């Protein structure tokens, strides 16, 4: 009797509905709540992280701003900038001057000893008439009563150390009267008149010399 009563009251489906399903629902609700809370926490932690990072940046920005706005620092910095600007300008100026000096250092001035060398190269009977030296080009006009002296002078010049090249283009001749006043030979002894004046052949030439150097 008792067993039958118990059997009739034992309804597993109803039990399932009342106990198990309720438990499942509660469990799912809890899961949802945990999930909501988790999402909330994740967002909150993320937000808090960014917020603290922002606070730190604001603090650093503030410190740097204080440093950058400090009157003494601005004064020193401006002074340093002016010095740097001066250094740059001076470097630029120095570069320009140095470059100009390099050209001027390489440029040569005429050496006075060129004339000494010219004189040393001159054969004994040769006479220099005119010398013109322009930017390292020397033109010498000269003459001699000896024909061979003109080319000899040119050859002598070639051996001088300061001359890069010697350009000799030949010579011209001219007759020159030799005046010999008061001499017995100047009067013809037969006629008693003045004798024919003696003449001499003079060889004159021009030589162009290129002087070594940069002009």
């Amino acid at each position, binding site marked *: 009797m008792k067993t039958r009563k118990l059997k009739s009251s034992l309804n597993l489906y109803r039990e399932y509905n009342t106990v198990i399903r309720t438990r499942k629902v509660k469990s799912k609700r809890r899961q949802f709540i945990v999930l909501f809370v988790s999402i909330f926490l994740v967002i909150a932690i993320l937000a808090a992280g960014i917020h603290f990072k922002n606070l730190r940046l604001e603090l650093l920005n503030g410190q740097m701003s204080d440093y950058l706005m400090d009157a003494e620092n601005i004064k020193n910095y401006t002074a340093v900038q002016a010095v740097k600007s001066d250094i740059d300008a001076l470097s630029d100026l*120095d570069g320009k001057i140095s470059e100009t000096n390099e*050209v*001027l250092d*390489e440029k040569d001035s005429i050496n006075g000893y060129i004339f*000494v060398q010219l004189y040393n190269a001159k054969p004994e009977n040769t006479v220099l008439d005119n010398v013109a*030296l322009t930017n390292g080009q020397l033109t010498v006009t000269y003459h001699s009563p000896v024909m061979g002296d003109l080319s000899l002078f040119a050859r002598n010049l070639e051996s001088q150390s300061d001359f890069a090249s010697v350009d000799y283009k030949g010579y011209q001749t001219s007759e020159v009267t030799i005046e010999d006043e008061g001499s017995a030979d100047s009067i013809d002894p037969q006629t008693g008149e003045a004798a024919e004046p003696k003449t001499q052949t003079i060889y004159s030439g021009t030589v162009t010399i290129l002087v070594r150097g940069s002009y």
Partner: protein
Amino acid sequence: MLKLTTRESRMLGVLVMILMIGVGIVFIIMPLSEKNALLQAQYDSSYAQYTEMQTAITLKSTYDKNLAKKTDEVNVSLAEISDVVKPEEFDIYLNSVLTNLGVKVTSVSYSEITAVTPSYLENKPSLVEYDLKDSLGLIDGAQDDEAEAVTASNSILKQTITVQFTGTQTQLTKFINELNAQDERFYVNQATMDYESGDITCSFDVYSVDKSTVKGTNSLEDSGGSGSTSK
């Protein structure tokens, strides 16, 4: 009350979660991130300025030393170029030189000062070109190096001084050597002599800069660069 089915309540839950995430991102995370980006940019900019300023201030004494050093260097370079010739002062020097040489001066003239870019050309004999020349050059290894004019990039001042006097070749040589010894920026470029009459004409160029116009001349002068001549 309307009772929701399990699926409906699940969907509602998912919707609420999406809403939570969306609201969280849009209204909390994004504004904070934007502010963060702004602050970070401000920080980067400020940090660059801060570093630059701090470095500059720390190195102030070094920059001062560099300025003094550079000023000295400029002084040394500048001293290599002559001062502008003042004829009335240069005449004193020139007259003393010519008097000491014992020559009879005919004239002394100073040209106008002009701006020129200094240049030079190495004197080399000009060679005639012909067909076999290149081949011969290959055999004996000779190189065909033609002289090229070198010109400075910047112009400076040039004045030509011409002196005419009557004298001997020795006196001319001495005069030229005296000029060359006096200042390395005197360039004797022309000399003619008539041996019969003894007439001599000698011209020389003086390359100079007007140092009174140099910016910061006082500081340059104060630093005491060594120089050649200033007459």
